[in-house]
């Protein structure tokens, strides 16, 4: 199969993904580029473009596991969660399918060109829009229904109530696909949508095994023993040590190191060393604004 040529597949033709037939009104044709046939069993991992650093980690960890287990990961190539999903799947040694809201020859967003190129080599890019079609706001809901149709289950990682990821989940539920969601804090707007899904009956995911347990189509697959690229995490330091107290303070959400220094009466030199140690040990992650947050083993990607 050629890596660069876009193939146009007519409905019912050779290579037509059979699951598209589940749609009430399937597209007449799709365009496909890339190396992997999107007909394999697949899980969609989607979420907001605007998301937290921790959510990116969770997505990469989850999709790495899926990729390693031989499950294809479908997503929308958007910034944020979508991009992390593709990256994780490829990092786990699996393949991934990007479903676009534009022509197969258009790269949107442009920042994801390297990622798209990686997908063309080890995954594929699929769309129902004709070549040359520029991305338009009304094309993305259409695209979401395609994602929902192509997969056996949708995992929503982090989504606000207005996020397009919820429309993917709705389509998936209508088509009888499993809907799963990663629970988030109830205090933040950017996790309100995914939390609401759980309230409405989506399966909450606390660890990777939950996906395999919840989706019948994946039941036969063995969970990989170790996630590729991960290492064992050192044990959590005792709560009485300075490191343990740092973790306690950072457990409730992102906290600035200055505040830690004040609360623990530690000088910045000493505290910086502790934070680095905890970060490398997988107990803490740094956020975009320089705060730190304590995370559980699965959320740290270890």
């Amino acid at each position: 199969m050629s890596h660069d040529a876009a193939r146009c597949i007519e409905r019912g033709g050779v290579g037509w993904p059979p699951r598209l037939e589940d749609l009430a009104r399937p597209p007449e044709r799709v365009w496909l580029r890339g190396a992997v046939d999107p007909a394999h069993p697949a899980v969609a991992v989607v979420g907001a473009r605007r998301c937290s650093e921790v959510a990116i980690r969770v997505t990469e960890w989850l999709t790495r596991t899926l990729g390693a287990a031989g499950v294809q990961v479908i997503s929308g190539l958007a910034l944020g969660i979508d991009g992390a999903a593709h990256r994780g799947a490829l990092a786990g040694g699996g393949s991934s399918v990007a479903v676009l809201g534009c022509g197969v020859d258009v790269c949107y967003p442009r920042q994801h060109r390297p990622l798209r190129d990686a997908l063309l080599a080890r995954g594929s890019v699929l769309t129902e829009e004709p070549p040359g079609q520029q991305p338009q706001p009304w094309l993305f809901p259409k695209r979401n229904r395609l994602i929902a149709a192509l997969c056996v289950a949708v995992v929503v990682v982090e989504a606000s109530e207005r996020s397009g990821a919820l429309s993917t989940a709705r389509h998936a539920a209508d088509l009888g696909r499993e809907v799963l969601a990663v629970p988030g804090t109830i205090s933040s707007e950017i996790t309100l949508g995914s939390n609401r899904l759980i309230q409405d009956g989506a399966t909450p995911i606390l660890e990777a095994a939950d996906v395999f347990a919840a989706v019948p189509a994946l039941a036969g697959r063995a969970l990989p023993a170790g996630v590729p690229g991960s290492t064992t995490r050192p044990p959590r330091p005792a709560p009485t040590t300075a490191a343990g107290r740092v973790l306690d303070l950072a457990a409730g959400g992102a906290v600035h190191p200055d505040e830690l220094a004040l609360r623990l009466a530690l000088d910045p030199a000493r505290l910086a060393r502790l934070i680095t140690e905890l970060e490398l040990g997988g107990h803490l992650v740094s956020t975009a604004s320089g705060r730190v947050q304590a995370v559980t083993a699965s959320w740290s990607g270890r």
Partner: protein
Amino acid sequence: MFAMAVGCALRGVAGVPVTVEADLANGLPNFTVVGLTDRAIQEARERVRAAISNAGFEFPQRRLTINLAPAELPKEGTAFDLPIALAVLGSCGKQLDMRGTAAVGELALDASVRAVVGVLPMARALRAAGTRRLLVPEVNAAEAMLVEGLEVVGVPSLPACVGHLDGSRPLRTALVAAAPPPASVREADLADVRGQPFAKRALEIAAAGGHNLLMVGPPGSGKTMLAQALVSVLPDLEVDDALEVAAVYSLRGALRERPATCARPPFRAPHHSISRAGLVGGGSGLAQPGELSLAHRGMLFLDELCEFPRSLLESLRQPLEERSITIVRSRGSVVLPADFALVAAANPCPCGYLEDSRRACTCGPRELAVYQARLSGPLRDRIDLVVPVPRQQYAQLFATGAPEEHSAQVRDRVSAARERQRARNRGALNAALEGNRLVDGCHPEAGATALLATAGERLALSARAYHRVLRVARTLADLEGSERVGQGHVGEALRYRGEEAA
């Protein structure tokens, strides 16, 4: 008849001695000045003619030619008025003792002598070229006297100058004022900044190792105040460095805002609306130093870094790498000094409230990606330290906790750390170390090497990021007085690496 005087031209911040030749020949009355002159020098003819007449001398009614040598060097400015007048008077037969003497100054029509810019660099160049006595406008005498071994005479007017040179009415040689008190400038004190221990620590590291620093924080978090406090922890300038700085200020005629005797490193904070010529230097004719050169041996503070046009930020690359700026013009190129530490401040996102506890961020994902991309790139590679600065909590501002450290205490530690670096790096600060010189100077302990390897893998450090961490770790070891870089130093340095945009 023929006579000569010595003046001085400027090329960048260097003076170039110029011989002013005057020839008086028979012919129709005429007055020409040749030797690649600009408009100001052509106009000097009118000033010189009037000044000589009004001083009570007779202006020759013959054919008068002035040549400024070397003739291929472009010359500009009004500092040639005085030497031209002296050469003219010499050519008319006045007996003036011009041996080892040079003169600079602008003439007024009433024959008084006015101040000019760039006297300090001129005096340095003339002294180096063998001049023993320098006549300068009275106002500029103080800066010329900073040059050792030069007899400086401040002249109020052309007749007084002639009286001095023909020995009829000698002027008093300007005396080296009994050790002028080192002029001080008002600086913020580190103790005025409440809380923010990590930012303060970063300031100390930046000052000690000469590292460039980026502060990221929401509006009103005190980034500007922190930057001002950073100057206060820098040690005083060495005498030579102070002279270099004064020479730049002399060129800009800006010695009033910063006295020539000031030993404190300069602090410049240009606004992001600054023009390219204002920042880099330039202007018409040969280049004037810009803000980058005015920050020489000191600090350049760029607030709202992302608001600066991309082209201006690009122009920071050469000075950050080569510590100087080359401005090329059709008439020649000049090299301006620009050895400064960069301190930049930026909001974490376009609206400034990313992950803020009290106000929601309104930036879209695309805006955010574009903004964060602006913070990356070649400039970012030259910034060793990145520190997040959080919004100040009201309670913290007025907390009566432990007393804050004063700048003077930190400055002592910084000076000691700089001593150690200069001894080891042959004069360079750690920020200037690259490649093998950096690795050789670090002598990392086994634990430090292991930690670097782990961090490189888990945090996906690029080669450049790795070197940045190593440079900062080296400075941390120097602050502690340790010969070798330990695990703790690397651990702390990793906190200041900043996140690189994917």
